[in-house]
């Protein structure tokens, strides 16, 4: 949905004792693809995927040790060119050839949606999993806004989107393809036209609906040699109506309710818009410790009735050490809205713990929803290695379900904040001065002073004094 996916970092610490080897391991060649999906609103979504694999000498020692599984979220990160440049450098052709030519920062950041990811994971090379490859997969999804970039026009071409065209494939790539969603194109009411006309098409079930893609293979020499460059164009024959976009079966919304600086409530709305199928959802929430959750107020209601989760895992927060972790498996009834709400109290921080901009508020990371969503169209099982990369974005488990992971929007919560201004500083300073003065005065007033009589001294001193008196000199 419209909520932008934050840069979630899932780190799997599975490194063995041997660590990384220094020599460059043999690489599998690169697979790269670009999927262009024209949306009914006139916007265009473009998703890049690059995949590289290489053998590693690291061996898996038994099963994954869950003690090394870490989950961390940085809800505030705003993606910008600083994130894009190092990301591009990971690609074997950098941005010199292949699809990565199109990754031009000033166009990619003129979009209404931008999501960029790096996935690293071990992959078994054979069925018995005796040897392991490491897989590096980089994805970049952008949505070009017809209103902003297209000045109201809804026709698109690669040049208009990226201000570049494709000229040559990356020499290191074993596969380099562009897929264009032309599901509407092949039907009777032609609304969309693609130019140049595609030579091959690909049909699959994505997100529970049947989709048809036109394929442009960059490794096909005829494709580029015809006109020295490839500029795919989309034309709407009949401009789409401004109708509300179709609602996905699972979507969610999260917000803070209540007012004032003492209490509040975190509410998550889970929508199941499927007309007749109920399905379970795994909800994972991490809430910072400075929102003190009242777990007894956790309520889950759907269709006006209480909904008991079949599984709850709660790990309470420790102040300044770890956040709350709440994980629940909730069954969403068909065609319903489920509200998960929990009350919290806003904690007072120590004065050094406030951020430099405390009045901006504090971020609460998004909840993560994982679900197997029933699809309308049955999909047949596919061979992962052969099918396009984008197929694995929403993997199908058994033909009737597809897997979806959703991130809700992050929240901004105001905490009680002292007035960090000039009067505040004056008060701090005055308090310090008063404390110092009070301390020394108290010390003076409560201490008892004794005047120590000088000892009369030894025989030598007495003698010396006698002599001094005789001479008329004051005694020692």
């Amino acid at each position, binding site marked *: 949905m*419209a*909520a*932008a996916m*934050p840069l979630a970092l899932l780190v799997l610490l599975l490194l063995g004792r041997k660590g990384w080897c220094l020599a460059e391991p043999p690489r599998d060649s690169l697979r790269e693809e670009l999927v262009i999906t024209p949306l009914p609103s006139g916007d265009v979504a473009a998703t890049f995927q690059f995949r590289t694999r290489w053998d590693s000498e690291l061996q898996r020692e038994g099963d994954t040790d869950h003690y090394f599984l870490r989950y961390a979220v940085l*809800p505030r990160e*705003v*993606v910008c060119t600083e994130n894009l440049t190092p990301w591009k450098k990971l690609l074997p052709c950098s941005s010199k050839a292949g699809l990565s030519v199109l990754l031009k920062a000033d166009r990619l*950041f*003129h*979009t*209404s*949606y*931008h999501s960029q990811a790096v996935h690293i994971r071990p992959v078994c090379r054979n069925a018995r999993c005796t040897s392991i490859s490491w897989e590096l997969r980089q994805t970049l999804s952008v949505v070009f*806004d017809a*209103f*902003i970039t297209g*000045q109201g026009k809804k026709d698109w071409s690669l040049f208009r989107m990226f201000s570049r065209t494709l000229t040559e494939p990356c020499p290191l790539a074993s596969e380099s393809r562009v897929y264009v969603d032309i599901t509407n194109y092949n039907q009777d009411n032609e609304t969309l036209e693609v130019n140049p006309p595609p030579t091959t098409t690909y049909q699959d079930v994505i997100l529970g609906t049947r989709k048809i893609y036109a394929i442009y293979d960059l490794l096909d020499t005829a494709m580029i040699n015809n006109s020295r460059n490839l500029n795919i164009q989309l034309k709407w024959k009949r401009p789409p109506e*401004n*109708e*509300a976009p179709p609602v996905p079966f699972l979507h969610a*919304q999260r*917000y*803070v*309710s*209540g*007012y004032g600086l003492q209490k509040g*409530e975190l*509410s998550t709305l889970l929508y199941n818009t499927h007309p007749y199928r109920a399905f379970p959802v795994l909800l994972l929430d991490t809430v910072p410790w400075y929102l003190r959750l009242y777990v007894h107020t956790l309520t889950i209601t759907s269709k006006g009735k209480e909904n008991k989760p079949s599984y709850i895992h709660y790990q309470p927060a420790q102040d300044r050490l770890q956040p709350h972790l709440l994980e629940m498996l909730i069954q969403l009834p068909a065609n319903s809205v489920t509200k998960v709400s929990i009350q919290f109290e806003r904690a007072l921080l120590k004065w050094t713990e406030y951020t430099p*901009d*405390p*009045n*901006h*508020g504090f*971020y609460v990371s998004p909840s993560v929803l994982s679900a197997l969503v029933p699809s309308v169209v049955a999909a047949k099982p596919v061979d992962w290695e052969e099918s396009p990369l984008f197929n694995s974005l929403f993997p199908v488990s058994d033909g009737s379900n597809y897997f979806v992971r959703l991130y809700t*929007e*992050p*929240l*901004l*919560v*105001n905490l009680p904040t002292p007035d960090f*201004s000039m009067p505040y500083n004056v008060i701090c300073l005055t308090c310090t001065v008063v404390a110092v003065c009070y301390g020394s005065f108290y010390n003076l007033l409560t201490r008892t002073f004794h005047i120590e009589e000088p000892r009369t001294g030894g025989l030598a001193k007495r003698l010396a004094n006698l002599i001094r008196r005789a001479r008329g000199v004051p005694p020692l």
Partner: protein
Amino acid sequence: MGLLSDPVRRRALARLVLRLNAPLWALPVAWLERTMRSVGLEVYTQSFSRKLPFPDETHERYMVSGTNVYGILRAPRAASTESLVLTVPCGSDSTNSQAVGLLLALAAHFRGQIYWAKDIIFLVTEHDLLGTEAWLEAYHDVNVTGMQSSPLQGRAGAIQAAVALELSSDVVTSLDVAVEGLNGQLPNLDLLNLFQTFCQKGGLLCTLQGKLQPQDWTSLDGPLQGLQTLLLMVLRQASGRPHGSHGLFLRYRVEALTLRGINSFRQYKYDLVAVGKALEGMFRKLNHLLERLHQSFFLYLLPALSRFVSIGLYMPAAGFLLLVLGLKALELWMQLHEAEVGLEEPGGAPGPSVPLPPSQGVGLASLVAPLLISQAMGLALYVLPVLGQHVATQYFPVAEAEAVVLTLLAIYAAGLALPHNTHRVVSTQAPDRGWMALKLVALIYLALQLGCIALTNFSLGFLLATTMVPAAALAKPHGPRTLYAALLVLTSPAATLLGSLFLWRELQEAPLSLAEGWQLFLAALAQGVLEHHTYGALLFPLLSLGLYPCWLLFWNVLFWK
């Protein structure tokens, strides 16, 4: 700023205004939805209904149901954590349709820009403030006033600031800005400064409380005009009612103000482009905010747009007034103490073992009845008018709203007759002790109440303190009783309200005749009760449960036998 610079957009705006000028009986929800969607917003609607406690005769409504329409402009690549609101309240007639037109034009213009970092919510509410209240409660998922409304489908994070717009014609001569919100809350002064900056930049004529800004502060006229504006602001803030739909946002800590386009008989008129430019500038500035507005003052009084009186300057005035009560209470305490000592001596009972003279115990006991009865009167004043309106309409030929107001006045007047018959003369030895103790309690009670009010709503606290303190300090059962009684009646909360109404219209240069004043007074009473029930304004419960019983105690002191 390219707003409406091209003729196509300007023509579109003119068309919108024309379409909206057609007589309307309800908000054209479907049309608004369609238009907002064609502009490229995410559009949602919210329906709400509310049965008022009794018919509202000024707005002619009782069973209210309506629909709010709002469109969200999502900021590109942002995560919808923060938002700004531009709201246009629409009444039952189409008085505010020009503002809707401007809102749609602004939405179309804003949608084409890529610099937005915060989402912008364009909100059109029906039944002006009731719709705003319903929307705000649903947005924050709370129910403060018993409004029934459908839950919101779309949200856009924490609202950082809001601007409400009211335009009654498509040309304006000046823009009036209203800051006073519910219960006298004010937005951060920086928001007002922002507005003033863009007024100056665009050469717009801005007014505060409908008064032009004094130019010359050196002669006597400038400060005098500033004083008038200041007094108007004090009266408005003291009323505790939201002056514009921005007032309801302040409860949720959303800095907000209302801009009103005024079309008077001036030569130079501005079209909506000028207003739109000022609004665009304000929204761009607010869009750049890193934190909520917090640097400037939250508590201030305004003699002019560019000048303010800060809390450090005005608070001592209220403090000194309350000091009178404190000193008077101290004096009474000393007198009571002396009387006690004086009683013991002629009694001739020597020795420290003598128990407390019975008069003290009885004196305290004699306080219980007047205190309880005056509080009960206050409670009756708070509860009975709304509760008993149906009974009243059955037995008397009045409408519900009239019944409420008349019951209110009847109970108020009955309070004057009741309490001084209730106590018996218990102490023959020290006839003064009873009233002194009662006055002591009443003084402390009044001082505490006024102190608390002055802290939250300075204007109300100060207004009540200036009227109630002298009479309260003077009240005693000896001396010119009728004079004191007249003084007390003149400074009772209801009389203060009546006086404020006359002063208010006098300052606005539209003086009231007595009959008009009375009508306005009755309407204000009904509005006060209604606003408590519909928006949660605190003035009515404060007066009926706090100050009226306290004032009755002084009345009781005056007629102590």
